C-alpha cells in the first residue's frame, strides 16, 4: 500500500496506515480513562446512595426526588439563573460596546488600551476574589467609598442576602467582560472593511451600518459568546466559594457550589451525582446550540 502511495501521491491521503491511529491514541486513552468513564459513572452513581466507604446502595430515583424537594436546591437554581441572566443581558452587550470602542477608528493608542483591557483574563479567580473582598468591604471598601460621594450606601455587598449576588456578579464581571471583549474584537476585525465602505458610499450612517452590516456578520461570534457565557455561569464556583462560601444563608450559592458541598463536605456522592446529572442535561441543551456554532466552524472542512 505504501509503495503505491508513493507512486501516486494524490492517492496517499487515504493511506496513512496505522500512523493516524497512533497519533490520536494518546489523546483517546486519556480521554477514555479520565473523561468517558467518569461521565458514565456519574450517570450511574446518581441512582445510588454512597458515602465513598460503605457498599453503594441502590436507591433508584430517590436522589432526584430528594433533590427536587430540597428548598436549598431551588434557592441555588434561582441564584444560578440570576448569574446566567445577568451575564447574558449585561455582560454580552457591554462586551460588544467595549469591543466597538476598542475598534473605533477615532481611538488613539489602540494597542495600549487593548493590553490594559485584556489583563484581567490572565489573573486568577482566587487573587481577584481576595482583592475584591477589600474593594467591596462595607465600611472601608472603595466601592462604598465612591457611592458615599453621592450620598449613597454603605451597601453590605457580601453580607446581606439582598445584595450578595450583585456583589459576586461584579467580581465575575471584572474577570469575564475582558474575555468577551477579546472575542467580539476578533469578530469585528474579521469583518471586511470594504463592506463598511460600500455601506458608507450608499449613505448609511454609523447606527445603520452597525445594525445592517456589523451585527449580522457578528452573529456567529455572538452565538459563540452566548454559549461560553452560559456554560461559565452554570459552572460558576471559584468566586462564590472564596468570597462568601455560598452565604449568607445560601443567598449566593451556585449549582456547582451545591454539588461541591453535598459531595465533598457531606460525602453524599450519590446525591451529588444526581446534581451533576442534572447539570449535564442543562449543559447538553446549551451544547446543542454550540454544536450549531461549531458546525459552521469546520467539522467538514478539509485541508
Amino acid at each position: 500500500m505504501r509503495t503505491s502511495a508513493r507512486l501516486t501521491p494524490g492517492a496517499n491521503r487515504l493511506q496513512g496506515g496505522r500512523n493516524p491511529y497512533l497519533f490520536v491514541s494518546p489523546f483517546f486513552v486519556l480521554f477514555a480513562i479520565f473523561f468517558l468513564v467518569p461521565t458514565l459513572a456519574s450517570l450511574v452513581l446518581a441512582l445510588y446512595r454512597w458515602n465513598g466507604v460503605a457498599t453503594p446502595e441502590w436507591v433508584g430515583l430517590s436522589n432526584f426526588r430528594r433533590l427536587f424537594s430540597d428548598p436549598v436546591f431551588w434557592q441555588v437554581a434561582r441564584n444560578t439563573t440570576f448569574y446566567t441572566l445577568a451575564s447574558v443581558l449585561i455582560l454580552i452587550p457591554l462586551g460588544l460596546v467595549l469591543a466597538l470602542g476598542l475598534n473605533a477608528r477615532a481611538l488613539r493608542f489602540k494597542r495600549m488600551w487593548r493590553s490594559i483591557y485584556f489583563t484581567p483574563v490572565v489573573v486568577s479567580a482566587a487573587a481577584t476574589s481576595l482583592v475584591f473582598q477589600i474593594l467591596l468591604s462595607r465600611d472601608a471598601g472603595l466601592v462604598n467609598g465612591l457611592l458615599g460621594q453621592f450620598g449613597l450606601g454603605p451597601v453590605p455587598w457580601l453580607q446581606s442576602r439582598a445584595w450578595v449576588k450583585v456583589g459576586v456578579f461584579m467580581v465575575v464581571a471584572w474577570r469575564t467582560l475582558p474575555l468577551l471583549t477579546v472575542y467580539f474584537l476578533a469578530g469585528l476585525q474579521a469583518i471586511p472593511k470594504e463592506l463598511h465602505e460600500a455601506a458608507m458610499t450608499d449613505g448609511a450612517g454609523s447606527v445603520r451600518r452597525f445594525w445592517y452590516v456589523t451585527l449580522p456578520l457578528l452573529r456567529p461570534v455572538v452565538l459563540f459568546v452566548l454559549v461560553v457565557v452560559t456554560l461559565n455561569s452554570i459552572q460558576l464556583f471559584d468566586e462564590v466559594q472564596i468570597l462568601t462560601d455560598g452565604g449568607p444563608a445560601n443567598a449566593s450559592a451556585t449549582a456547582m457550589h451545591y454539588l461541591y458541598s453535598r459531595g465533598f463536605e457531606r460525602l453524599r456522592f450519590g446525591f451529588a451525582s444526581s446534581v451533576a446529572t442534572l447539570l449535564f442535561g442543562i449543559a447538553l441543551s446549551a451544547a446543542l446550540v454550540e454544536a450549531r456554532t461549531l458546525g459552521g466552524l469546520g467539522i467538514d472542512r478539509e485541508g
Partner: protein
Amino acid sequence: MSRLIQKRIGHLAVNVAVAVGAVITLVPLAWMVFSSFKTTTEIFTYPPWLMPRELSLFNYESLLRGFPFGRWYLNSIFYCAVVTVAVPLVCSLAGYAFAKLSFRGRRGLFLLVLASIVIPFQVILIPMFILMSQIGWVDTPYAMTIPWIAPALGIFLMRQYSYAIPAELLEAARIDGASEFRIYWQIVLPLLKNGLAALAIIQFLSSWNSYIWPLMVLRGQESMTLPVGLAGMQAQAAGTATPYGEMMAGATLASLPVIVLFLIAQRYLISGLTTGAVK
C-alpha cells in the same frame, strides 16, 4: 462646520470612555499591589486610599515566614511546567492527524472530541475524585498533571492551525521516504510554532489559575498550589484576624508571572483564544 464639531466630540467621547473603562480595569490590580505594602488596619481605613503611607515589605516578609508560600510557588511552577510542555505535544500530534491524515472513523472520532468540549468538567468532578482516590492519586502530582495533558480544546485548536500546512510539503517528504512520525517531528512541528505557543500559553494560564481541582485532590499545606493556598489563608485564620496584607502580597506575587507572560505573548494568547470564536 457643526458636523465637524460633532465628529470631534464623538471622537473625544470614544477616547474618554475607553480611558474610563481602562481605569476601572486597572483599579483592582493596582489595589492588590499597593495593599500589599499596607498593614491590615491601613487596608481597611476609611476613606479608602490607594497609596500606602510607606513602602514597606513587612507583608512579604511575614508571608514567607508564616506560610509555606515558597512551597506553593514551586508546586504551581512544577504542575504548570509539566502540563505546558506535554499538552502542546499530545494535542499537536492528534490535531495534525485529524487535519491532514485520512483514516477510517476520523469524522466520528473528531465529533467525540468536539462533544466533550461542551460538557462542563465539573459534571465529572465526583467520579473523577472517586477514581483518584481508588487509584491512590489523591495528594500526588499525578492527579495534578496526567488527567489534564489531553484537553479536547487543545486538539480542536491544533487541528485548526494544522490546516495551514501545505500538503505538497508532506507529499514531498513522503516521496523522499520519511516516516510519518519523522514528518510530524521535523516538518509539522516547526510549522505549527504559532499554534503551539498559543496552546502552551492557554494551558499555562488555566493550570496556574485552576482552583476547584487542586482544592479537591490536594491535602495538607505543603502540597497546595498558589490559588488554593492563598484562598486558604482566609479560612485558616478563622478566629484570628484575616491576614489581608499577606494575602495581597501573595496575590501580587502569584499574578506577576502571568501578567508579564501576557504582556510578552499577548498576540499568541489572543489568537489561540479567538480561533474558536471567529470563522
